């Protein structure tokens, strides 16, 4: 972990606090920049500058074996880009991602890449677009088995596909049908069966339930929980829905405009959110408990990632912003006053660091979030 900035160094004790857990995935100051300039000729004739979009900027996190890390944020915050970087669908612009100690640059090619690719799989948001409509379900699920030459012989593959379909709650006979014959929830089950076919340890799930109705979402979330327990899977779970992340994740990272602004154990993050943006997001969730809690919708919107504000990207919407926030980018630092929670939280906020959020003295143990909601 050498060569990290002052802010990053604080992450080390946080990881050390969890006894015996081995980190499976580590993203180290990763960044991804997209070139969204106009075509060369237009640019030259129109004297337009090159346009670069920093979708992910200096993001660091680790995921322990058997754990679920949730990433939440609003549209355009870079969470899906992180997912694609982790499985190697995009090339990193900066930083490194290691999987079980090995650099995933190797994913791209070679024998080592093939071995590594088998161990991590992805589930996509849209079950209508991620399954080949011309293939039978059995072929879709069997593809990873064939691609990685995991089993020999038609009969063995067939038996394995039937077992996978049964594992996700489908019938063996469903293998002979085509994707269009299934509902959204069933298609997502097929996606999961396909992801499991190569016997991975790590699943990256990009909004896997966002396209589904709540009752179907509950079926899929329950299934993912069961599979995690049975197979010892590790998840990176991306969602814009805080309640879903609260349900499924052990630790949660909150992203805003390409950066992680807060990352902490689930209980701590939801009970005692520290970053003003996290607090705003939690306040914005509609209240099912009908306590009549006054919601204070935060004014303003996410700025364009093409032209992010200087300093802390959240400062134009932040009630605590001062000159330093407008000038200097805050780095993730572990929070003092969050002792005894068992999981260190990290926050990227000058106000929290300086104790200007009026919360540090009280300690992070009790949170307004849960306390006020439960009061009803």
């Amino acid at each position, binding site marked *: 972990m050498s060569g990290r900035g002052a802010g990053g160094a604080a992450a080390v004790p946080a990881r050390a606090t969890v006894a015996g857990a081995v980190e499976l995935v580590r993203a180290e100051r990763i960044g991804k920049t997209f070139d969204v300039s106009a075509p060369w000729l237009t640019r030259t004739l129109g004297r337009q500058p090159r346009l670069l979009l920093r979708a992910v900027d200096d993001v660091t996190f680790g995921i322990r074996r058997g754990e679920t890390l949730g990433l939440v944020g609003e549209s355009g915050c870079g969470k899906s880009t992180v997912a694609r970087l982790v499985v190697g669908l995009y090339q990193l612009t900066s930083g490194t991602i290691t999987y079980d100690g090995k650099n995933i640059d190797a994913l791209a090619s070679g024998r080592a890449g093939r071995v590594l690719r088998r161990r991590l799989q992805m589930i996509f948001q849209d079950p209508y677009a991620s399954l080949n409509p011309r293939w039978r379900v059995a072929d879709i699920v069997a593809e990873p088995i064939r691609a990685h030459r995991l089993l020999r012989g038609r009969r063995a593959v067939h038996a394995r596909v039937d077992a996978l379909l049964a594992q996700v709650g489908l019938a063996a006979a469903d293998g002979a049908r085509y994707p269009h014959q299934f509902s959204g929830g069933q298609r997502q089950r097929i996606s999961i069966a396909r992801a499991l076919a190569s016997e991975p340890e790590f699943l990256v799930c990009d909004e896997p339930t966002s396209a589904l109705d709540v009752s179907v979402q509950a079926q899929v979330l329950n299934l993912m929980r069961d599979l995690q327990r049975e197979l010892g899977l590790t998840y990176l779970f991306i969602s814009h829905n805080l309640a879903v992340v609260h349900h499924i994740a052990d630790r949660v990272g909150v992203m805003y405009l390409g950066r992680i602004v807060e990352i902490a154990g689930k209980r701590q993050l939801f009970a005692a959110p520290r970053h003003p943006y996290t607090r705003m997001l939690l306040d*914005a969730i509609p209240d099912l408990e*009908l306590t009549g809690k006054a919601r204070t*919708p935060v004014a303003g*919107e996410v700025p364009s990632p093409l032209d992010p504000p200087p300093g802390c990207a959240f400062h134009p919407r932040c009630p605590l912003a001062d000159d330093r926030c407008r000038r200097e980018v805050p780095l993730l630092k572990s929070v003092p006053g969050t002792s005894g929670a068992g999981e260190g939280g990290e926050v990227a906020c000058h106000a929290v660091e300086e104790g200007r959020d009026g919360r540090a003295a009280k300690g992070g143990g009790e949170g307004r*979030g849960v306390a006020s909601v439960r009061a009803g």
Partner: protein
Amino acid sequence: MSAAAERAAETRPALLDVRNLRIEFPTRRGTLVAIDGVSFSIAPGEVLGVVGESGAGKSLTGAAIIGLLEPPGRIASGEIRLDGRRIDDLPYDAMRKIRGRRIGAIFQDPLTSLNPLYSIGSQLTETIRTHLDMSEGAARARAIDLLREVGIPSPERRIDHFPHQFSGGMRQRVVIALAICANPQLIIADEPTTALDVSIQAQIISLLKRLCRDHGTAVMLVTHDMGVIAETADRVAVMYAGRIAEIGPVAEVIHAPKHPYTVGLMGSIPSIVDDRERLVQIDGAMPRLNAIPRGCAFNPRCARAFDRCRSERPELVDVGVVRAACWLYADAGANAHAQPRAGVAT
């Protein structure tokens, strides 16, 4: 039917009254019944939430009320009354005068509700002058006032911008301004916040609530998001396979749901306040329109179904302060207190 009882429960006379609405889609393989015997009413100034999963028929009900059913869909029977006057059998031109003037509409995707080729100012003034007798200048002044009211900063400048120059949340504000520009008595809002991020969603919900309070506008809020209903609605109707499964005051339906479908639906929503290992799971999926089961449409997925559920279709009956269409409550009242939210507690 105890329509009289329901009316008595609401002290105010109904603004919108839907009775036994049935919507059919004739197809080559026979007629599909998308909405079957739906009845409800909305009082002036009241917010009625209509919740259900995809295909339950909630948007279709809204479209029928504003006369925008897409052919071949048609109202086969039943009636829709606005202020006591039937509006479901009006000719096209007469309905056009009501739509926009007395019933406003907000749809899910603000980009498709706005014309990309006209500035929002010209769309607003056109709508205002279609419905209200106003000069060009007065209509423009009203348009600026409306934009200010829905929270668009510097409306004098923004009025000449085009839809693509607005963000999603701001566009939805423009759509709301369009919907309220002729002071309608009723707004049909079909998934108004679904396409928006949570923080923007909160802004739009509080805007809708404030406008309804200030203007006394009634709202039919169609959504699949129970959280939005909980925050906004006075009463809620839960729809399943083209029928209302349960309807009643929002607190009652959320905290003490009666119909087994509502119980399951509430339990399946993840929450940030409780720590549950598993969510309540309703197995299976909503039936397709061409395969709606006999009896209660929910019976194949219902853990408490018995013989009668499989043969006879239940109608809405009073169960305490709510009404539910479920045979468990056939002896309404007597049984009402014996149904705790068993499924939800787990």
